[in-house]
Structures are given as structure tokens and as C-alpha cells.
């Protein structure tokens, strides 16, 4: 079907033309997540699916996948199936939406995507390495203590994290190069490297409006797609950007 989930728009329901329709008009107690979806026109529902889909691909890029792909994931999953599952969990009530806690349905769905991706990245099918050596296999007691002191990370995982950090620092260099023709983007990256993490703070140090800075983040996310592609070509890493 061209559109498997296309509710005909209810004629008597007032809808907002705002792109964030799912954030408004949901105050009534009788309006739960199902009716919120039904109140969306097919076009608005398409936009919601696209937004959550874009978010899922962006998140997948930041994770390390055994498959070497940011789309084809372990366990036979894909980013498409993950987004689909998020909607299914919402509608089935397994991950029901409480507007009082999270006013935005889009954000709620994105948090479900986060949860699904997080489980998948930690799954056994995403492990790169074989079983770790045990104490009985000859590991020194001091080394075991050192593992435990570091929490749940194993030496291999610590090594991998170090490698990832190094690659991320290289990738930051690539990102700065990709932003060379856009002084504002470079300033925003520099501000983040200096530890600023809020659009309002970055707006202040760069003397731009918060709206401009938010637009910068959208452009930066798209630059990350290019940088990710470069890093995969140069270092053969799947995901992580």
C-alpha cells in the first residue's frame, strides 16, 4: 500500500497547520495518544514519520554497529524497522504517551527510538569480540581489580572507547574543515569545544539569535552525514558519527 496508515482526516476536528501540531491541542483528558494520532491529517502524520525517521538515522550514525552499516543493524533490524516499532509500541500502548510528562509526541517517539537503539547496541549480536578471558585462565588479580574499579567496562571495551575517542577527535577536524566556508558554523563548533552546551549560551558568545544557532545545528547535523561518509571511507568504521 502506498500509505498503510492513512486515517482519513476527521472533518469536524480542528487541526493546526503548524508543523508541530502534535504538540498542541492535547490538553483534554479524553485525548490520549491514539486520538492524537487520528487527529493528524495524512500529511501531518507523514511529517511525523519523516521527523522521527530522520532522528533515528541521525542517532544510528552516532552508534557503533558490528554490521558496518548505519542502516542495516544487528539482529536483522534496520533503522526503518526500529522507527516502525516505535510507532507500533505507541499504538499498542506498550510505550504509551503521557502528554503531561512529555508534551511533544515527536519527542516521545524519539525517546522510544533511543531506547530501542540502545538495547540493540548492547545486544549480544552487536558484540565484536569473543568471550573475555576469566580469572581462572590466568589473569592477574590486580588486573581483575582494575577491571572492576572501572565499572562494567572490560579492557577490550576500554580500548575500543579510547579508539573511538581518537577517531571522534579526527572527525572533529574533518567537521571543522567541512565548515570552513561558514564562519558561524565554525564559531558554533568552537563554542561547543569550549564546553558550551546550550543554544542560548552559544548564541550569546557568537552574537547571534537562538534561532540562528538552532539552524546551525540542523546544518551541522547534515555536515555530520558528509563527515561520517569520509570517516567510513578512510577508516572503515560503521556508525559512530
Amino acid at each position, binding site marked *: *500500500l*502506498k*500509505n*498503510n*496508515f*492513512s*486515517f*482519513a482526516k*476527521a*472533518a*469536524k*476536528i480542528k487541526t493546526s497547520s503548524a*508543523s508541530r501540531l502534535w504538540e498542541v491541542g492535547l490538553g483534554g483528558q479524553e485525548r490520549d495518544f491514539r486520538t492524537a*494520532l*487520528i487527529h493528524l491529517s*495524512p500529511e501531518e502524520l*507523514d*511529517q511525523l*514519520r*519523516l*521527523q522521527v*525517521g*530522520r*532522528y533515528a*538515522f*541521525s542517532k544510528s*550514525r*552516532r552508534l557503533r554497529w558490528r554490521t558496518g552499516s548505519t542502516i542495516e543493524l544487528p539482529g536483522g533490524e534496520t533503522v*526503518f*524497522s526500529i*522507527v*516502525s516499532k516505535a*510507532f*507500533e509500541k505507541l*499504538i*499498542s500502548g506498550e510505550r504509551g504517551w503521557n502528554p503531561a510528562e512529555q508534551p511533544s509526541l515527536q519527542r516521545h517517539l*524519539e525517546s522510544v527510538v533511543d531506547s530501542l537503539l540502545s538495547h540493540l547496541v548492547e545486544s549480544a549480536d552487536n558484540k565484536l569480540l569473543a568471550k573475555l578471558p576469566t580469572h581462572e585462565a590466568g589473569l592477574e588479580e590486580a588486573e581483575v581489580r582494575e577491571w572492576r574499579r572501572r565499572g562494567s567496562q572490560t579492557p577490550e571495551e576500554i580500548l575500543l572507547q579510547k579508539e*573511538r*575517542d581518537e577517531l*571522534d*577527535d*579526527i*572527525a*572533529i577536524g574533518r*567537521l571543522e574543515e567541512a565548515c570552513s566556508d561558514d564562519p558561524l558554523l565554525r564559531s558554533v*563548533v568552537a563554542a*561547543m*569545544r*569550549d564546553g558550551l552546551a546550550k*543554544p542560548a549560551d552559544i548564541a550569546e558568545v557568537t552574537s547571534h539569535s537562538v534561532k540562528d544557532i*538552532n*539552524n546551525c*545545528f*540542523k546544518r551541522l*547535523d*547534515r555536515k*555530520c*552525514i*558528509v563527515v561520517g561518509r569520509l570517516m567510513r571511507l578512510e577508516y572503515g568504521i560503521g556508525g559512530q*558519527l
Partner: protein
Amino acid sequence: MKGLTKGRHVFDLITELSSQAEWTENETRKALQEEGIDPGYLLRSVLPGVKTLDIEVPCEALSTFVKLSKSGYEVRLSGQRAGNLQVDAASNREELIARIAEVLAKASLQELESFLRHVEDSYVSKGKSE
């Protein structure tokens, strides 16, 4: 590098803050295309399982649900006016047509437009898949 935020935190921040920004549909589609994703494919791929979930429409307006199957069309009309109907077109075409006509006779222009758009979408899809 000492004193600078780690690269991974910067990338995490970009992902987080870009998702909080407001994206237009055009921007979203462009970003997906740059990612190598066909937005149309995404829309077709996401939610195929949802159609099997029975969701009632708690309003007076007409809602339609048309599903193609090998045996024909399954049309589900719901809402207070229409009641609920599920007909396999191949086995009981007359009943299907009669019930659709009955419901459509009561429908407003806007409801008819919604219904026709839905059916047209299904026909277009069927033609492509065959």
C-alpha cells in the same frame, strides 16, 4: 587538546540539539536524501504492522480503511454514522458496494474527498505492485 570538550560529546550535542530544532518537511526530506534515504521509501516502510491494529475512531466523521489483499479489497468503515464494516470485496462485492453507497450518501463533501483520496492511493499502489 587539553581543556577542550571531547569530540564525541560535541557530536552527541549536535545530534541532540539538532533534533530539538524545528525542521520543515523540506529540510527533513533533504537531510534524509543526503543520508542516502529515499523519504518515500521511509514512509512506505514505517508502520506496515500498524494497519493490523484495530483503532477505533472516536468521532462522528467518516473514517475509512482500505486494504488490498490477494482476494480483493477489504474495506473497513468506522465512525458513529457508519458503524463497523469489514467486507471482502471478492466474496461479497454487492454488499460492499451497497454499504459504501449508504455511507457515502450521508457523508459531507470533505469526508467524500478523504474517502476518494484513500481509495485512489490504494488503486495507485495496486497498479504499481502488479
